[in-house]
């Protein structure tokens, strides 16, 4: 070998310089950011005059997006930790039903109903996680079982107790309850009134609420969604525990060898997912004033789709909470946007399928770039 073929000490001649474009591509949020821009551009062009972007319209798709966001944060962290939870939707129905039964049928104060429901739901999440780490079974199977078990109870309990599948009256029970307001209240009402007074947002023109803004405040649902995204993002990227989440999903065996308590991390993530589902359920019960047995159907898949659009890998170890939040935003904007644009709403499902496929293909490609596989 002549000296001319010797590589220099600092670089390997066979490794191509990575362009900035490719560097940006390996950020997990990228798909979410591009998707969000695309979706907003599309609806600004085609549905601007439809009322989608006035105060009520914005509040409409923001709330839908916030709902997706709450469950997507839990699903995202769990997926990065290498597991799935298919029982999210059933948990929403089940937890909502528990709150209604405790507060209406049993007549407990609403705050107590909410706290007890959270304890039960998070314990079921822990049970999910415990079974998964102890048996080594795929979480897909274990949580599929709980999808049926919890949905079954969400129907059985009200049927047996009240002979119906919808329990109302939580709204009256929740009047003045401090904890109910944390989930069902609105904040910044003064600010929204001020915006109404100054003509920034629309106000009622007549009737008993004349002069009040049509959007009275920021619903706690949205506050929860934003708070969960921020907290989830900080935990994942800025803490030691976040490193353990990545490690547990990236390669559980390697993580264990390095002293990461993988089982604990996974169980905690199952508990967090159940927590998020219960936040969703509580907000929904407070909004509607009641619970229904069929609440939350298919939500587990919608959460997973939002997470995948946000750039997380189905195989775990890689993803972003911000990305999942953007995925949820895309979801909500498109679902409501199609309505505003006057498109047949069933096309939303077609859109979902297409974008899911696209996102998974993109993610797989990105994974190859990161790991250098071919």
């Amino acid at each position, binding site marked *: 070998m002549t000296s001319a073929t010797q590589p220099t*000490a*600092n*670089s390997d001649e066979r490794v191509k310089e*990575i362009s900035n474009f490719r560097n940006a591509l*390996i950020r997990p949020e990228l798909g979410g950011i591009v998707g969000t821009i695309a979706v907003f551009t599309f609806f600004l062009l085609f549905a601007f005059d439809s009322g989608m972007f006035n105060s009520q319209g914005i509040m409409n798709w923001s709330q839908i997006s916030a709902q997706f966001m709450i469950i997507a944060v839990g699903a995202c962290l769990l997926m990065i930790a290498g597991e799935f939870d298919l029982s999210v939707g059933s948990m929403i129905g089940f937890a909502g039903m528990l709150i209604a039964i405790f507060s209406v049928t049993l007549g407990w104060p609403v705050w107590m109903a909410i706290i007890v429901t959270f304890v039960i739901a998070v314990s079921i999440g822990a049970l999910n996680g415990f079974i998964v780490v102890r048996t080594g079974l795929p979480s897909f199977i274990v949580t599929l079982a709980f999808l049926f078990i919890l949905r079954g109870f969400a129907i059985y309990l009200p049927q047996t107790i009240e002979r119906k599948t919808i329990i109302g009256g939580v709204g009256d029970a929740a009047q003045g309850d401090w904890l109910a307001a944390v989930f069902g209240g609105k904040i910044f009402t003064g600010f929204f009134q001020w915006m109404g007074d100054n003509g920034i947002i629309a106000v009622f023109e007549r009737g008993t609420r004349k002069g009040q803004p049509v959007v009275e405040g920021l619903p706690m649902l949205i506050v929860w969604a934003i708070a969960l995204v921020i907290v989830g993002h900080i935990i994942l990227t*800025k*803490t*030691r525990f*976040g*490193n*353990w989440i*990545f*490690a547990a999903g*990236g*390669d559980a*065996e*390697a*993580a*264990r*060898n*390095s*002293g*990461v308590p993988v089982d604990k991390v996974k169980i905690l993530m199952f508990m967090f997912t159940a927590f998020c589902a219960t936040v969703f359920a509580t907000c929904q019960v407070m909004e509607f004033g009641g619970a229904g047995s069929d609440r939350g159907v298919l939500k587990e898949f919608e959460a997973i789709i939002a997470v995948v659009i946000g750039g997380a*890998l189905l195989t775990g*170890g*890689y993803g972003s909470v911000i990305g999942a939040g953007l995925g949820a935003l895309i979801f909500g904007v498109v679902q409501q946007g199609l309505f505003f644009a006057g498109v047949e709403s069933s096309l939303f499902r077609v859109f979902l399928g297409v974008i899911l496929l696209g996102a998974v293909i993109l993610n797989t490609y990105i*994974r190859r770039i*990161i*790991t*250098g*596989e071919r």
Partner: protein
Amino acid sequence: MNPEHAPLIQMKNIEKHFGRVIALAGVSVDVFPGECHCLLGDNGAGKSTFIKTMSGVHKPTNGEILFEGKQMHFADPRDAISAGIATVHQHLAMIPLMSVSRNFFMGNEPVKKIGPMKFFDHDYANKVTMEEMRKMGINLRGPDQAVGTLSGGERQTVAIARAVHFGAKVLILDEPTSALGVRQTANVLATIDKVRKQGVAVVFITHNVRHALAVGDRFTVLNRGQTLGTSQRGQITPDELQDMMAGGQELVALEGSLGGTV
């Protein structure tokens, strides 16, 4: 090997039974600081069981482990790690999707306090990772480069550097060269040599006699759960080692038919 030193770790008459299977039938090995002790043996000889006992994964059925002269009972690998016994595994050392810096500090994340909250100190982690990698002769594009982009040899080197950085006194390397090419193997062997010179006791598991002879100070051969003795560097030829590993006669016959190429 320095004879003035006391052995860092002594494994005395270690037996390990799995149900009716006797994986180890009384194996004794001692390792001195600054020594590279090679543990050789064919597949199924009990090498893995033996090092797993040493690193706290398995509890020995019989026999005792002395670490720095004191008897030790490791409840789990964490105990062994905190005592200073680190293992670098064959395939399971690194997580490809995570950055080098995140991998380097996995399980030992540095934290800084901001108010009541503790956060992962990425600045410190990145700085140390770059420094340690430079010492080992790996030039990273950046600390956030994914481990997946490193070669197999570089990954082993990162894992070794990590173990040493976190105060390993005994470093167990489980077949670090088995899946590597020639040049990468040379890099890993050079890393082992560097680490040994820092006074770390290295237990190097391999079934490649040439790799063992390249860096080893002493050689212990395991066969069917028993030691076939320990020999010093220079007192044993590669052929003798090879024969001991394979259990003698059959390989001699086989080697004849292959023209001495094994």
